[in-house]
């Protein structure tokens, strides 16, 4: 049945015609996500955990860090916690996907935390930006702004609906693919976000999908920052050069080790990173379309196959040793589309004075159990607190870990 592996739109429908002679209607073209998917594979996304994980089941004791670093549970009982944005008074807002909530986490005087459900019933409200006292929530198909939020954590004000102003592609236009958002505030005061591709892999509208875009906070003046970016759900600006950096997910179903997830450095507005034709020097076996990979911008680093790179931050604190200053911490949520697990950790991309990535260092490990092919949690975001410690959100167990360093 190799013919089933190569159903590509109309041409394949015609080829496949005889095989479906008994079908009540002509076979629909196989959707983009299925291209290259092998017969008989049993790889499927891991089940999300949407219930509260008791503290004694939060896998803090599994976490391994370099010498001198310690991990503690900062907050827990926060199912699905992902992206983190911090308010001027220190409130941490946390976005989610499946459970549809945005949490507000505050610190009690004794150092413990209190978590409130700030907003709920939203479709995958993963993208958060804090501008002054206003929280912007980017859900699927909705952009909402909540003003003066930290003074109103118990009774959030009605949001201002900016959906029409941002005019991002709709859920329907995405066909359910890569429509969840990550959002970041740029040093220029603009909001940066992703528009993921509307398939696993396909010939898409490259002015509409597979983009990094920026807007003024009111949703006007859309600018394409980078194109040919399959899906980025983590980005940050370099604290010195102000360049935009982003993590990027590679496509599925084309092997355990190809293509790799990547770290992108956007040096000039609008540059093209090659999706779906290429990723770095790797030419897509089905969608290259005869393009030379050298004509596209090259990723700053490759971050491993199917590792699911998410949140990234430059380390701007002073608590960690000097060697980590302005280096990039990256959460790798971990693979499903791979025979053996990869990722489920936090790595550091070390940069030289020119901003070239010199090496990728494993930083937070121990959550991936290679022997038993299990994982204990899925890091989805990193965030540097003002005291220089670092938060890591664990989406699977609904916990936020705090990493500190002591000489």
């Amino acid at each position, binding site marked *: 049945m190799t013919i089933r592996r190569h159903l590509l739109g109309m041409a394949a429908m015609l080829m496949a015609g005889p095989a479906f002679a*008994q079908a*009540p209607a002509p076979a629909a073209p196989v959707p983009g*996500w299925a291209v290259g998917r092998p017969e008989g594979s049993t790889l*499927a*996304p891991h089940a*999300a955990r949407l219930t509260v994980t008791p503290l004694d089941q939060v896998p803090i004791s599994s976490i391994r860090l370099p010498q001198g670093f310690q991990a503690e549970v900062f907050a827990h009982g926060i199912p699905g916690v992902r992206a983190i944005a911090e308010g001027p008074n220190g409130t941490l807002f946390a976005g989610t996907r*499946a459970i549809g909530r945005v949490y507000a986490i505050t610190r009690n005087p004794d150092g413990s935390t209190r978590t409130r459900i700030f907003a709920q019933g939203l479709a995958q409200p993963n993208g958060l930006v804090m501008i002054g006292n206003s929280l912007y929530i980017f859900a699927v198909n909705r952009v909402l702004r909540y003003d003066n939020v930290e003074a109103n954590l118990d009774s959030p004000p009605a949001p201002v609906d900016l959906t029409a102003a941002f005019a991002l592609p709709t859920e329907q236009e995405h066909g359910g693919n890569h429509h969840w958002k990550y959002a970041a505030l740029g040093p220029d005061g603009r909001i940066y976000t992703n528009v993921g591709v509307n398939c696993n892999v396909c010939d898409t509208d490259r002015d509409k999908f597979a983009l990094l875009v920026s807007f003024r906070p009111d949703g006007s003046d859309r600018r394409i920052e980078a194109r040919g970016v399959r899906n980025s759900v983590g980005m940050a600006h370099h604290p010195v050069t102000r360049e935009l950096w982003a993590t990027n997910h590679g496509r599925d179903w084309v092997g355990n080790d190809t293509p790799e997830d990547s770290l992108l450095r956007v040096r000039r507005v609008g540059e093209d990173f090659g999706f779906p034709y290429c990723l770095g020097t790797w030419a897509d076996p089905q969608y290259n379309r005869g393009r030379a990979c050298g004509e596209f911008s090259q990723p700053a680093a490759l971050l491993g196959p199917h590792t699911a790179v998410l949140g990234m931050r430059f380390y701007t604190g002073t608590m960690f040793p000097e060697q980590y200053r302005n280096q990039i911490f990256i959460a790798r949520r971990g693979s499903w589309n791979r025979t053996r697990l990869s990722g489920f950790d936090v790595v550091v991309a070390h940069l030289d004075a020119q901003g070239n990535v010199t090496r990728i260092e494993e930083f937070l490990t121990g959550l991936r159990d290679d022997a038993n092919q299990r994982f204990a949690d899925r890091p989805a975001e990193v965030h540097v607190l003002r005291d220089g410690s670092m938060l890591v959100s664990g989406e699977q167990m609904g916990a936020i870990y705090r990493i500190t360093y002591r000489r």
Partner: protein
Amino acid sequence: MAAALLAAVTSGVALAQDARRGAELATPCLQCHGTNGRSQTPEIPSLAGQPADFITIQMILLREGLRNAPAMTPFAAGKSDQDIQDIAAWFATLPPGPPDDRRPRDAALFAAGQALSGPRHCATCHVSDYGGRNQIPRVAAQREEYLLHAMTQYRDGLRAGPDTQMNGAVMGLSNADLAALAHYLAQLD
């Protein structure tokens, strides 16, 4: 026989505490979902033998107002995580099977559905016996009109799971395609 008994006892021990409590909590569920978890009511799915993770996640999506099934709203509202997990654990222990009123197999429709199941990779996630796993439901022997309803909702963007795999899986299928798939899956045991 001895081995089968041992297996039953072992799985019973693993689930006893949660599932026993879940059995009591599930009493109101049975009026629609069937006294043995096999629904005899049109448009209402069977829950017997569904993976516990699947029931838990769907109940939470219903509780949070993220899945629209008005009949379920009053039952899901305010349910604690623990109640949901216990109910799910109990339904997972029930032996699955078809509804009493399952219609006879239509050979042509069954073949058409089977022909679609390969290119759509249904068994990749639902497993080769279509018994489901983790967050992925058992679809074998499910009520046919419910399968058609669920797949139509996924196709038309009226429902999403914790991820969007099902929306992609049925994208572009015609009503006739979905009817054939529903018949094929409903006929499996």
